[in-house]
């Protein structure tokens, strides 16, 4: 049990917000977290930027490229968030790709997460089978939950396996796509939400990819335990800066 599990017990219609560490400015990490906390979000995902983010669309690829050219790296991020718990009690997740974590050392990475009181990880290119065979015991040792993605193409058998391995929530990818904001969800997407709901999984579900406004937020929340928003928030930071966070969040609720 950690902050993520408690959030799902105590709250409904969870709103989790992603941002890329080091974007727009290298030193913005803690200010953004403070602002998100004040704006009433339920969970925060810090993106550790990577040069080749395969699962992400153009918005997050661009914010990652800028963050890296601003000088962001794993050591700097951990240094910036060492006093994380002085500014927020929300669950905080790091989302990043496997290669920078391997270079840092997986165990070392988990230890740093624990020191900073991070609650979980999302690693899109770490498949559930390899996690289960090689990494789960290390993550458990540091009380870190690892979240997995499912898509409209994921087989029922595989979803059951992912559900079994999941300790916190399942990240339900809304459509066949990389990350990026969409305006509406079609019938096909809604049928997929319903199909997954009928499976009565033990892990709660958060919908991510393609959520950008009140409408997509509402439809997704009606069919799950909440939503994850990334690209739309990055676009907000890009156009209006950190101070626009509160208004952006209010616009989603």
């Amino acid at each position, binding site marked *: 049990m950690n902050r993520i599990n408690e959030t799902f017990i105590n709250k409904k219609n969870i709103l989790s917000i992603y941002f890329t560490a080091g974007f727009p400015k290298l030193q913005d990490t803690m200010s953004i977290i403070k602002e998100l906390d004040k704006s009433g979000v339920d969970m925060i995902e810090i993106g550790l930027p990577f040069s080749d983010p*395969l699962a992400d669309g153009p918005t997050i690829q661009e914010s990652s490229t800028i963050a890296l050219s601003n000088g962001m790296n794993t050591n700097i991020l951990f240094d910036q968030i060492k006093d994380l718990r002085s500014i927020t009690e929300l669950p905080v997740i790091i989302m990043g790709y496997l290669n920078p974590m*391997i*270079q840092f050392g997986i165990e070392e990475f988990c230890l740093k997460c624990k020191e900073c009181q991070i609650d979980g990880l999302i690693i899109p290119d770490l*498949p559930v089978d390899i996690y289960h065979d090689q990494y789960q015991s290390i993550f458990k040792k540091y009380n870190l939950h690892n979240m997995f993605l499912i898509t409209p193409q*994921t087989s029922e058998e595989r979803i059951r396996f992912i559900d079994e391995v999941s300790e916190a929530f399942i990240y339900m990818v809304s459509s066949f796509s990389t990350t990026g904001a969409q305006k509406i969800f079609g019938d096909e997407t809604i049928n997929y939400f319903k199909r997954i709901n009928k499976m009565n999984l033990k892990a709660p579900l958060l919908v991510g990819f393609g959520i950008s406004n009140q409408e997509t937020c509402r439809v997704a929340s009606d069919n799950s335990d909440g939503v994850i928003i990334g690209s739309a928030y990055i676009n907000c930071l890009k156009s209006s800066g950190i101070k626009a966070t509160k208004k952006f969040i209010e616009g989603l609720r």
Partner: protein
Amino acid sequence: MKTHNVDSKGFYGEFGGAFIPEMLYPNVEELRNNYLKISSSKSFKNEFNKLLKDYVGRPTPLYFAKRLSEKYNTKIYLKREDLCHTGAHKINNTIGQILLAKKLGKKRIIAETGAGQHGVATATVCALMGIKCIIYMGEVDIKRQAPNVARMKMLGAEVRPATSGSKTLKDATNEAIRDWINNPVNTHYIIGSVVGPHPYPDMVARFQSVIGEETINQLQEIENKSKPDYVIACVGGGSNAAGLFYPFLDNFDVKIICVEAAGKGIDTGESAATSILGKTGIIHGSKTLLMQSNDGQITEPYSISAGLDYPGIGPMHANLFKSKRGEFISITDIDAMKWGLILSQTEGIIPAIETSHAFAVLDKKKFKPNDIIVFNCSGRGDKDLDTYIEYFKL
């Protein structure tokens, strides 16, 4: 017995596997479940072999390079992949994959390309089969490789610029993978080298293995021997090398030499010698050796040859390096260019600059008079003429 081939989970030793986002899992799983079944079926083999013969022009000659052999006092053979249709070995793989895609009912083909050779080979087989073809190519490469862009367009392919990151091969590969994520049902992704998630490295190696298999038969005929003493090939991602080495991987009498591009020199910061400069990590879904910063960001390699500047090497080659089964030698731009000229003027064969790297080993290593050495003459130099002209002020 320890094998240097792929294991049942898609690993070569510690390298390989499929480190892919869940969105790609169904696509890759469909391939994994079908590639061996389809490619070993009789109808597939018949069609594949017929196209290799009538369309590609196989078998390619195994040519005894007499003057070069005299000069270096050893027995040098060239496997003439440069004589394949479209000018390089790349088409062996694209023929195999397009047939596979057809059997899987795919209606749309995507591919990445760096120098444009794989893009041309893919556009060619798509034209042959009447299938829609989209080629991702880095914006920087599109400018550098204008003739190949024109070829692809003439063959009916759409060339889409990759504008993210460093705007070169690795970014074109990222864009192709993203396209595949967005189009999981009707699209097949033809990867051009022995890289990417399992089963690609094994699948591409198998389609290219015709190079090594023919070599065995031809040596038998010419030398009355079934194996050479050395097989030598250049390695970017490593598909021409994998094709030549394939039948000899576990035959320890045959020594394997992989030739990497040192660029301006190993220590200059402008190099593509992945085995020396790389560390273990994940690139394009595969665990392998790759060039990266201390922080794990993938870095841009450099070589005068556009076909060798991939930041990783295939997992088969990473394992050949780690297990010491293969000897890795790196060759600078200067030596490679010199060998482009030497091969042209000693044997009348203008090689691709990638291929020139392999021949430069003759100056780095002493061979015995009775050694039989097979070089993969993987591509012809037409595409590099501009670079040769500029370099030698021709």
